[in-house]
């Protein structure tokens, strides 16, 4: 089997095809410190792409709560269980990827979810870790702690929005025996060819993130298309643009050795290393990156985002001292346009974004929100200002 280099796991690995990186890779960053699970992204995607017959239970974008939520049911627990405990040596993954761990009959290690696994997308929503433990609070494991809510910081949960990761080494593409799934050379977007798909669902079985979905009306499989008609016009996808919390940024990502410092994606992922891939140990080199939630125990986060979690959290916590980093973060959700560069305008204390397609300055965002103090009595109007609560 051919060997390809996967920079997220710091080594070469086996892959069914000769490695061929796209000319450009479209990628995303989601800031998990800001997601409030309003599901606007979910609805935006559904209205745009999956409102048709057969697509009723499809959520190409979904937002689940961690640790007890999943869509489909237990998707990550099941594949982690199949893979078994594995290890890292610093930044190099010494365990097996899903390709390396495949059984002898199979191309990639995977499983086909049951139909009912898709029936409860909101399971575990808002369920915190640590609230219901009886006695296991403040170190009292003898039961004397009682079932009550103690120190806030023992409990945690966070929201995890997920879309197709448009992986560099997709398991869906590898699983399809008909080569009905392809990765575009121009932007690395992975698509299922709706003329060639015969609904075998090998892609669903293979993808560890369970992002392809079966459509019983057309009897083919479908998945997130990265809103490619928008991307081709230099616009960010629907889920990015409609995000109320401005937690998402998308754009083109270079490989680490070709990182361009003033590219917002390259800067955050390669230079600052504040955004990390989801389950890099699977070996697919996913292109949706996450800024880890700073309030969650790093031990839990390391399994999800790899060994650089602590560094990412430290960097994020000190962002207020770093205007350039703050500029990059401030540009999330501020423009529909895909940016090719950003800069910190010191004199104006603003983040500036430059449009990828025409190179113009397309957005300026102040790093500090302007504050205006108005007097209690407005002389011109002859009225008093009151707080309305």
């Amino acid at each position, binding site marked *: 089997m051919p060997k390809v280099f996967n920079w997220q796991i710091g080594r070469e690995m086996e892959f069914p095809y000769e490695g061929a990186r796209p000319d450009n890779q479209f990628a995303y960053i989601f800031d998990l410190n800001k997601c409030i699970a309003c599901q606007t992204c979910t609805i935006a995607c559904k209205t745009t792409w999956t409102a048709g017959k057969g697509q009723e239970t499809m959520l190409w974008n979904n937002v689940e709560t961690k640790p007890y939520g999943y869509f489909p049911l237990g998707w990550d627990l099941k594949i982690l269980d199949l893979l078994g405990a594995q290890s890292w040596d610093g930044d190099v993954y010494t365990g097996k990827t899903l390709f390396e761990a495949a059984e002898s009959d199979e191309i990639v290690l995977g499983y086909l979810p049951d139909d009912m696994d898709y029936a409860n997308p909101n399971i575990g929503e808002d369920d915190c870790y640590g609230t219901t433990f009886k006695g296991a609070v403040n170190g009292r494991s003898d039961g004397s702690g009682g079932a009550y809510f103690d120190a806030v910081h023992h409990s945690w949960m966070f929201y995890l929005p997920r879309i197709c990761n448009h992986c560099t080494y997709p398991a869906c593409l590898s699983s399809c*025996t008909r080569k009905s799934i392809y990765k575009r050379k121009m932007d690395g977007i992975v698509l299922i060819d709706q003329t060639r798909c015969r609904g*075998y669902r090998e892609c669903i079985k293979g993808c560890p993130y369970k992002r392809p979905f*079966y459509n019983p009306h057309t*009897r083919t499989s*479908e998945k997130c298309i990265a809103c490619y008609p928008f991307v081709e016009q230099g616009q960010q996808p629907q889920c990015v643009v409609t995000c109320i919390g401005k937690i998402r940024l998308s754009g083109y990502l270079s490989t680490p050795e070709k990182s361009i410092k003033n590219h917002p994606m390259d800067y955050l992922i390669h230079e600052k290393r504040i955004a990390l891939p989801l389950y890099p140990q699977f070996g697919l080199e996913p292109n949706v990156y996450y800024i880890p939630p700073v309030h969650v125990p790093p031990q839990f986060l390391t399994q999800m985002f790899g060994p650089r979690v602590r560094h990412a959290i430290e960097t994020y916590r000190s962002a207020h001292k770093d205007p350039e980093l703050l500029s990059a973060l401030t540009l999330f959700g501020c423009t529909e346009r895909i940016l090719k560069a950003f800069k910190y305008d010191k004199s104006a204390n603003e983040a500036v974004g430059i449009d990828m397609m025409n190179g113009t300055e397309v957005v300026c965002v102040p790093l500090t929100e302007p504050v205006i103090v108005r007097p209690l009595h407005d002389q011109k109007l002859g009225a008093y200002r009151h707080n309305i609560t």
Partner: protein
Amino acid sequence: MKNTLFLSALALLGLTGPALAQTTIESKPTRTSLDEMLKPGHQEWQSMPESTIKMAPQNIAKPMLSKGTFQELKVRSSVTKNWLLIRMEWEDPNADAELTRGEFSDACAVQFCAKGDAKDTSPFMGNPGKPVHILHWKAIWQADIELGYRDVEHGYPNMYVDYYPLAEGKKTEDIKGPALQYNPARSLNNPMSLTQRKQPMEELVAVGFGSATSQAHLDAKANGQHSNKKWSVVFARPLETPDPSDSQLKAGSSVPIAFALWDGATRNRGGRKHYCMWQTLKIGGTP
């Protein structure tokens, strides 16, 4: 590359002994009408000699079946003035004809050499330059025709949906025109998405693993039924067709023929199937 694979696979299979040895299937002429012969239970089929073909789980190209559920296939064949008929019968306790809730459909197929012969055409879906011509039946399509297209509401009888954008209603037949924006597979005429099939089968051409492509024009017919824990399916195809990608057959000749079976209950689909080597079909009738 494919030829090497073919030859090494042949060598590999030789080790399994007589299990996959060639059988000659005799196809005797009949005067019974085509429509009657398309009924697998028709009396006339009993006077056609029965051949037993050993079926093996596909274990050449990943993903493979290491263990199959079907061991044998019974084949009978007949020929009318213009049509070749193949009757396949195999034991399968469950009739799997659903696709709405993540199931897989039972299916079977017959394969002919479209250009070459058994010596140069791989029995494993053909090879580049030496295509195979396949007749493929699926239980779900039989159910679609006999009982109506198995759509979402068939799998979820209590489902509710408020509306489908741009559709005139919620039923299968209401999803047309601009509503098909949400179903590109249908607007692109993907053969898997045909909601108004006339035959429970398709004809395919293939030149190796993963290349099978549905033909736009269907010349053949099929009919299947499940009873006494067995499937019996009759394929009927014109001996000669105007389609250049079809195999052309003549009365009085012998041609290579192969078969495949899929067990929906054990999630057979695509390459996860049961197959056999080339057998010989001796077509009766006056040339």
